[in-house]
């Protein structure tokens, strides 16, 4: 069974067609990177899979279950239709971290397990501390997000997502908002997760990373999937002109 399956995905913002004829399968334990020029629909696709956006046509299945297309309206109104089902299956990491600024690193991580999963606080703390050690952030657990670096924030955000024990992790340009010297520490954490057989879809501009960590690389341009192939094929021998043009610009 596919962890993620998108069939004929289509979405537009007004007249702008941002996703066209998207077909995609991700298997259990697979790490898939999505690359492509900005505005190509990479992030929108990820946001549709995480139910933050709704497609106008097509089907998305998570672990064989079709996800509801939620009703129209702003995020606030859509939030009201948020049932907790499915939520723990898909974790998401954002470009801008979106940590809760009024909570410490530890509180950020234990919040959802306690509030959503009704876990006992002690148990949630235990899991959170384990995760913080894993992302090498244990010494910052009582710090507020404003007091730590961007790389530390993103590692905290990854730990927060992992605390819900997701079957799938979606990472939306996890290093794009970071200073160059902080990119490595975040990528290393993601590489470790890839080794643990966690199913991941990563939108990234880090080509060397995508090549190293991915089982498959998807190249998107103007709302379409142009190529879906193993990294060696995409990076060494791309047969599409647009991929070559893109790679020559970014590498």
């Amino acid at each position, binding site marked *: 069974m596919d962890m993620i399956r998108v069939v004929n995905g289509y979405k537009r913002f007004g007249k702008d067609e941002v996703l066209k004829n998207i077909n995609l399968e991700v298997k259990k334990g697979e790490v898939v990177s999505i690359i492509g020029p900005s505005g190509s629909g990479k992030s929108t696709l990820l946001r549709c899979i*995480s*139910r*933050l956006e709704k497609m106008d046509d097509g089907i998305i299945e998570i672990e064989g279950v079709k996800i509801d297309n939620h009703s129209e*309206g702003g*995020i*606030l*109104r*859509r*939030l*009201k239709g*948020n*049932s*907790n089902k499915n*939520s*723990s299956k*898909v*974790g*998401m990491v*954002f470009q*801008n971290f*979106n*940590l*809760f*600024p*009024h*909570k*410490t690193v530890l509180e950020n991580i234990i*919040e*959802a397990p306690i*509030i*959503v*999963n009704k876990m006992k606080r002690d148990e949630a703390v235990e899991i959170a501390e384990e995760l913080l050690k894993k992302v090498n952030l244990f010494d910052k657990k009582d710090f*507020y*997000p*404003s007091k730590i670096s961007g790389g530390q924030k993103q590692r905290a955000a990854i730990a*927060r*997502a992992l605390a*819900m024990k997701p079957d799938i992790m979606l990472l939306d340009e996890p290093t794009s908002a970071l200073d160059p010297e902080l990119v490595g520490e975040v990528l290393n954490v993601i590489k470790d997760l890839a080794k643990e057989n966690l199913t991941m879809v990563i939108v990234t501009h880090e080509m060397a990373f995508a090549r190293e960590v991915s089982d498959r690389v998807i190249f998107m341009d103007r709302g379409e999937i142009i190529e879906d192939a193993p990294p060696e094929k995409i990076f060494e021998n791309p047969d599409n002109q647009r991929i070559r043009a893109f790679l020559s610009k970014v590498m």
Partner: protein
Amino acid sequence: MQYILDVTSFILKGSVITFKLYLVTAIFSVPLGALCALGKISRFRILRWFLGLYTWVFRGTPLMFQLFFTYYALPVFNIKLEPFTAAAVTYSINYAAYLTEIFRAGIESIDKGQYEAAKVLGMNYAQTMWRIILPQTIKRVIPPVSNEAISLIKDTALIAAIGMPDLLRAAKEVLVRDFTITPFFIASVLYLIITSFIVLIFRKIEKRYSVHE
């Protein structure tokens, strides 16, 4: 000196109503404003429209006029209120209108990413508002709310218009009786002491909510 003490104690006696009105208004207008703010960002169009009308009318007409309306015009519709009740109701509804807009703006100023993070973690609307959005909103609305809190203490002076003895009116009575402006100085010192106290309290609250910065 004895004169000043006498006058001060007389004015303070008059100010009991001022404090009472202040407290009642504060206690009712804050929750009312918070509820109306949540209504204003809700999906119910009619509710939003009605609340829009409410804040438009109550922010757009003078408080003194609203006070007159409650006290002198409502009896025409057979609703007769005691002066204090009339004042308390008017002030609470009037201040709630301002607070509605302050809270609404505060809620809307919170980054969309906070809602998204809460959503992907599986939190529902109530959990998101209560645990994530409102705590951050409180911090942001403290400065405008403290402005309102200071305005309110001064606005209480308007209740003299419906014949109630407040701080300022007590001062005026002494002034008329004794032909001296000393009571006005005393009254202004009292107002300043009260507002300083309010400012102090809000500074404390602000500090408490700023620990994460």
